[in-house]
């Protein structure tokens, strides 16, 4: 009689070999041939070629193949972009191919990578470690693919409120067009400003992609494309829209798209925010409250947003420790809320106190 275990021995051999092959293949694929590891090996050879002076040799000597990341808790971000974008702060890398090239402009000088990371401006998926997963291109199941080209200016608007920014001409143009040229605020609302008859725009830049109807959009299915095509011809994108066709130039449509993209709910903490010295606020805070805040002399004693005196506690700290109710009572009549304090009452009515509370909380 034949050995009844014979076929099993063959099966065991074949499946064990398959297991071994696929285990080794997976280990290689994930631990040695991962995109970023291949790129880092290429970058090391670039470093070797450029190691002509002592500094260059030092950079080469301290280069290890490893995952790199910037962790920025205040922004809720872990950005691993620098795992592949290895030369962004190395001026010698202006002539090499992406992803190794030096960061364009002098933006990194004012926006240190340790404080800002990458995705707060560029968007995309910071935790990812491959080209595809980082959402350089629109990516399934990732809602914020990277902003490209001129649309990148939208991100400046997250922190640079109201001011005219020479580096973000389109954003500045968009802000001007919104109020002055097209009077969008007749109908639309941003925060507490504007009409209420039309869709609110406060967070339109971070509205989930699923919330956009792309069935009439000709270009790719991205927020910028939807917004641009919509500005050029509202009824072509939303057939029953009541919005009058503003008959914009392409530049105007791009500028307003940039403005819309800047209106997100991804609001950086208040010490990242640069408030306007003067001019129209467009984005996070109501200007009335800001004016009130300064007009009532709060900044004579309190620190807030990097300005003000040092006699009284930093308002930012207070805001993080107190709730809206406490703030409201404090603005109405500060003494009972802070026992033993010699702060003087400021004669605010309910609506003003409300306004201030909202402002302080929103900026924070």
């Amino acid at each position, binding site marked *: *009689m034949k*050995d*009844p*275990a014979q*076929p*099993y*021995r063959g*099966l*065991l051999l074949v*499946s*064990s070999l*398959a*297991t071994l092959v*696929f*285990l080794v*293949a*997976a*280990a290689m694929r*994930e*631990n040695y041939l991962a995109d970023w590891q291949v790129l880092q090996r290429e970058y090391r050879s670039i470093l070797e070629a450029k190691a002509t002076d002592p500094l260059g040799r030092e950079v080469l000597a301290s280069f290890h193949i490893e*995952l790199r990341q910037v962790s920025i808790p205040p922004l809720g971000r*872990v950005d*691993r972009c620098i795992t592949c974008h290895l030369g962004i702060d190395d001026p010698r890398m202006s002539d090499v191919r992406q992803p190794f090239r030096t960061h364009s402009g002098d933006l990194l000088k004012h926006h240190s990578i340790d404080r800002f990371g990458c995705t707060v401006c560029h968007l995309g*998926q910071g*935790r*990812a*470690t*491959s080209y595809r*997963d980082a959402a350089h291109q629109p990516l399934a*199941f*990732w*809602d914020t693919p990277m902003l490209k080209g001129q649309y990148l200016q939208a991100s400046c608007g997250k922190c640079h409120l109201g001011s005219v920014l020479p580096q973000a001409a389109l954003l500045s143009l968009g802000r001007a067009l919104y109020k002055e040229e097209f009077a969008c605020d007749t109908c639309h609302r941003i925060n507490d400003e504007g009409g209420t008859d039309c869709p609110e725009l406060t967070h339109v830049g971070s509205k*989930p992609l*699923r*919330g956009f*109807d*792309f*069935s009439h959009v000709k270009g790719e299915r991205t927020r910028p494309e939807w917004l641009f095509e919509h500005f050029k011809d509202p009824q072509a994108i939303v057939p029953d829209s009541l919005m009058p066709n503003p008959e914009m130039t392409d530049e105007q449509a791009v500028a307003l798209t940039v403005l819309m993209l800047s209106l997100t709910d991804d609001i950086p903490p208040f010490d990242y925010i640069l408030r306007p010295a003067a001019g129209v606020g467009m984005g996070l805070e109501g200007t009335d409250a800001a004016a009130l805040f300064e007009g009532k002399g709060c900044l004579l004693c309190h620190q807030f947003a990097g300005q003000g005196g040092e006699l009284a506690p930093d308002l930012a700290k207070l805001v993080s420790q107190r709730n809206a109710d406490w703030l409201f009572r404090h603005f109405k009549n500060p003494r009972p809320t802070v026992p033993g304090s010699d702060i003087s009452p400021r004669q605010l009515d309910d609506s003003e106190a409300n306004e201030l509370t909202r402002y302080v909380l929103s900026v924070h």
Partner: protein
Amino acid sequence: MADTAVREFLHNLRLLPQTFKEAWLRLGKVPESEREESQATFHNFFLHIHSVRVHLRTLSPTLTWGLGLAATASFVILTITGVLLMVYYKPSTELAYQSMKDIHFTVATGRFIRNIHRWSAHVMVVAVFLHMARVFFTASYKKPREFNWLIGLALLVTTLGLSFTGYLLPWDQLAYWAITIGSNIANSPRELTDALGITRWFDPGGFQRQLLLGANYVGEDALIRFYVLHVFVLPLVLLILVGVHFWRIRKDGGLARPEDPMGGPAEWGGERRPVFEPLATKTYGLMAVVKGRRATVNRGPENTVMSWPHLLWAEMAVFMLTVAVSLILSFYFDAPLKELANPAIPENPAKAPWYFLGIQELVSYSAFMGGLVIPAIAVLGLALIPFLDRRPGGEGVWFGTPGERQVAWQSFLFALAVTIGMLTFTINFGWLRNWFPDIHQLWIIFINPGTLLVLFFAGWSLWVLERRNSVRLAAVALFTCFLIGFTLLTYFATVHRGPNWEFYWWPSQWPVH
């Protein structure tokens, strides 16, 4: 023996490798005689659940297809990969999704390990279902194995529970909305209590959902509950049940098989062996330590072979095959991870895990019937099979009694026709609510495509019972209908149901939005 303690110590030290090996492996070498082979099985904690000799039928691949073992193997794979994932996974709504991303992007082979966990889970659910079908169609639930059939059923439910609780943990849109659907199914008795207007006083649906979620919505409490169930409670339950399941196999006399003919083919390895002849002066029945009609007296022990190494080869082969299948699937297909869970943006369609989609299809007709009553009837019906079909015969043989194959084919075609017919009718003509908009919900609860399917299947089974005069054939008819109905509904809901649970031929026809 040395003459001083120092010499003795040095002597023992020199012999340490050998004595350690002897203590550890007992035999210290590959077993050579059958006596040593039986000791290899008997003296090993992990192997002693096996009998020392195993029947040749047990080793036949076409009897079992190794399905029970494949399910066990997947559970072992799931335990190992699960523990690895637990090292990185953080069960909090704030961190869960980010930890999934980190497992994907930064943990060494983390993505691969998660893929294996996902695929083994699917393999396990499929293997458990198929194993149940195998046991049924080989009539292996019959006396004395009724109780083990119940344990098997409990294992099926536990397996589904494990898979379902694991579904929520990634905390992505897929997880969130699948569990929302699942918890709504738990809530389904409300359909009846609402229709009767007694929900205010008697609300078992709301209670079930609260018990499952720890709140009225899928949130942090639900996540922790599912996590504890998934990584501790249910694996423990499963482990105990598997232990009992295996132990019962042994105590019930091994895998079900027909009686060997008297005498038996007393040949193995080209060598004839003596048949055990009973002595007239002994009562062998008393020596039987396992259940069965007789001790193996007066028949050849020669239809059995030593468990070591034959059964061991078979088990290792099935185990490694399961591992290989999981690895290959995991190498090529990534486990899904959608956007972060967002209660404000419902997935449309929101679908439960695939093995519950048949139930979800029934739920779309009536939540109470489809989500609770019909599954309860199905589980109860499955549990009753071995107690209603008690006539011996056909054990351990596929379609072992006359007419089974024929009835199975007829039931297959019947269930196919009735299920497809019912789905076609419902899609084309709607149901009571479309014809009589003001009808009381109680009518729909009791008369809907799901309950009618159950009635059709039960009727067919009763007809077979009456006509063929066999409880087994009636059971074959009902089980086949259940299997086909379940498979078709699952397929239908997976492929042909789109946004708002509307019918679409293919997902590519879903409206772009």
